[in-house]
């Protein structure tokens, strides 16, 4: 067995273990010096990203990977944890790895004036490990544990600027909301465990009956994950947390939020996939409705914000609505092969592609906001202006982010939104009208930012402002480059990355059969 095969075989475990081990080693490496620590963290995440891509390459070819911690013999009553990686898991892991790697590159200069950086990087690695664990695990209780790891580490990161009262307040709100969500999640898992004596997702999906208790568990799971994903009206923690955390933390939080979104999809499609067919349209329409409300409210609130980061945070809420709309539209026709091919698959492709696009677009805009704060120590749109003269590269990155998030061709956001508009129009024209209206309002929101921050006369107080350091420009450049490539070659991305992920969600039977070979349900 060569090294590549070895890495591939153990990749599900390594993707979580490497950042976890790195997190505990970071304080020790910090003892040498700060530069060594920064290089170490970048190497750790670079290595993890490489393994994620290695695993994803194999998974996208059609192979589902399982990894058992504990006894391989399923007949033995021994505690074991099973990781199961299908294309959707790999897709989410790719997003998480890119965001985490970019975050630490950006942090090199952005956060260097602060103290307690050994703890900062440890927490970044812990959040990343938790995020990977959430999307790779095939065990419900394990999912809860990783959700908790992510939440606790994220809370400390949000409150990292402890000298600012509002950051601490945002961290407090985040941990209260996360804990309540996690408690309901644990309760739902207990309900399932009590009935079926199993925690493995595939085993539960095989056994689930859609009984009264299962329905209660379904509501608790969707509500808990949807709150963590920032669905309206449970989104209110999100603008507080996103706007008060350092920019490099916010981009990791975007990944953590999307891991919760993955939780909603895994529950609806895989865990309840076989029984939700009893009335798939109802669940699908609930998700579509939540998506529409999220889009409209998010973008309306963004329009009236005067704080740069809070405005982007509300835009991030609106973007989550687009994903819910696409995936929900797919769920409404799940079980109807003809409708699925005509509407469901394109809608879900748009929704899943938009998860990736949103992470990149909103991530880039948060990094730009961080760069503006780094250079001016200001985030109020009323006090900023004329910065395009002093920060040319940052301005270009903002324009790329603006075009991408508003769905302006030829950026990546256009391709995913086009899929959502077309497919939802066939389901109900009002859905696509609301989606297009929200997109136009998003453009208006970011045109406002562009005018307020970058255009206008050079203000005397910003005469001395200079472009941000190279590490921050490189981080923004990486994301901007991916946005452009995804925008120019959407077919390549959709065929090779998005469609396998959509297929994994729709053909949930494959996921279950990997653990329960006798499973006969599924599409």
């Amino acid at each position, binding site marked *: 067995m060569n090294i590549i095969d070895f890495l591939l075989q153990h990749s599900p475990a390594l993707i979580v273990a490497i950042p976890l081990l790195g997190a505990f080693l970071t304080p020790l490496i910090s003892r040498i010096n700060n530069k060594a620590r920064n290089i170490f963290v970048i190497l750790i995440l670079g290595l993890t990203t490489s393994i994620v891509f290695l695993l994803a390459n194999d998974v996208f070819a059609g192979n589902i990977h399982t990894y058992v911690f504990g006894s391989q013999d399923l007949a033995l009553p021994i505690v074991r944890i099973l990781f199961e990686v299908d294309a959707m898991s790999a897709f989410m892991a790719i997003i998480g790895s890119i965001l985490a790697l970019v975050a630490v590159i950006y942090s090199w200069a952005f956060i260097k004036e602060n103290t307690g950086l050994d703890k900062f990087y440890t927490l970044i690695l812990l959040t990343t490990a938790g995020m990977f664990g959430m999307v790779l695990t095939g065990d419900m209780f394990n999912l809860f544990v990783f959700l908790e790891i992510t939440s606790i580490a994220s809370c400390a990161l949000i409150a990292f600027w402890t000298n600012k009262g509002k950051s601490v307040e945002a961290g407090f709100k985040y941990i209260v909301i996360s804990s309540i969500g996690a408690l309901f999640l644990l309760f739902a898992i207990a309900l399932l465990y009590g009935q079926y004596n199993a925690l493995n997702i595939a085993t539960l999906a095989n056994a689930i009956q859609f009984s009264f208790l299962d*329905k*209660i568990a379904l509501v608790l799971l969707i*509500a808990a994950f949807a709150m963590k994903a920032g669905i309206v009206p449970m989104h209110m923690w999100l603008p507080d947390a996103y706007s008060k955390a350092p920019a490099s933390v916010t981009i990791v939080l975007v990944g953590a939020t999307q891991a919760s979104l993955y939780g909603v999809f895994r529950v609806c499609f895989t865990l309840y996939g076989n029984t939700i067919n*009893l009335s798939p349209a109802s669940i699908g329409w609930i998700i579509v409705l939540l998506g529409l409300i999220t889009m409209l409210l998010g973008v309306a609130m963004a329009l009236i914000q005067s704080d740069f980061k809070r405005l982007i945070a509300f835009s991030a809420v609106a973007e989550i609505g687009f994903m819910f709309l696409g995936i929900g539209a797919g769920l409404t026709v799940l079980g109807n092969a003809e409708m699925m091919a005509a509407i469901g698959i*394109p809608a879900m492709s748009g929704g899943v592609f938009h998860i990736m696009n949103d992470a990149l677009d909103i991530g880039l805009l948060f990094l730009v906001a961080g760069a503006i704060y780094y250079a001016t120590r200001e985030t*109020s749109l009323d006090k900023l202006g004329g910065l395009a003269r002093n920060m040319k590269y940052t301005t270009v990155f903002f324009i790329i982010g603006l075009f991408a998030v508003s769905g302006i061709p030829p950026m990546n956001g256009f391709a995913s939104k086009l899929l959502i508009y077309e497919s939802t129009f066939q389901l109900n024209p009002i859905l696509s009208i609301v989606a297009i209206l929200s997109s136009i309002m998003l453009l208006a929101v970011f045109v406002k930012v562009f005018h307020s921050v970058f255009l206008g006369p050079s203000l005397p107080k910003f005469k001395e402002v200079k472009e941000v350091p190279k590490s921050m420009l490189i981080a923004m450049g990486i994301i901007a480059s991916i946005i452009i490539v995804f925008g120019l070659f959407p077919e390549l991305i959709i065929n090779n990355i998005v469609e396998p992920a959509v297929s994994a969600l729709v053909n949930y039977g494959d996921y279950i059969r990997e653990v329960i070979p006798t499973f006969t349900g599924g599409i």
Partner: protein
Amino acid sequence: MSMLETLLGTFQTGSGFWNPIVWIIVAALVFLITYILRGFGNKKYKKGTEQVKSFLSGNPEYEKEKMHVKGSNLFWGFTESLKWIFDILHKMHTGNISDYVLWFVIVMAVLFLLVGLM
């Protein structure tokens, strides 16, 4: 199909298509035509005279630093006419953690109702 053909391929959306490369070529042509048309413009204006000053309904021009329109002032007409909606949205966002939890409970109750009816 070669790699180049794959990269330049038209993306079929199901009921439509999208080719960013063609879009960029067309956009570049439009910019080129616009630039050529701009070249036909009148170049005989006098620099540094009244001709190049902004006309603000006969009012004097302020210093440039004071002319910047603030972020809060943009889309004033839109936000003012829909003030009642934005007021409701503002009131929803109290910043109080108890209210955040209350919304979670409300959503859960609605979901219980909807799933219970299934």
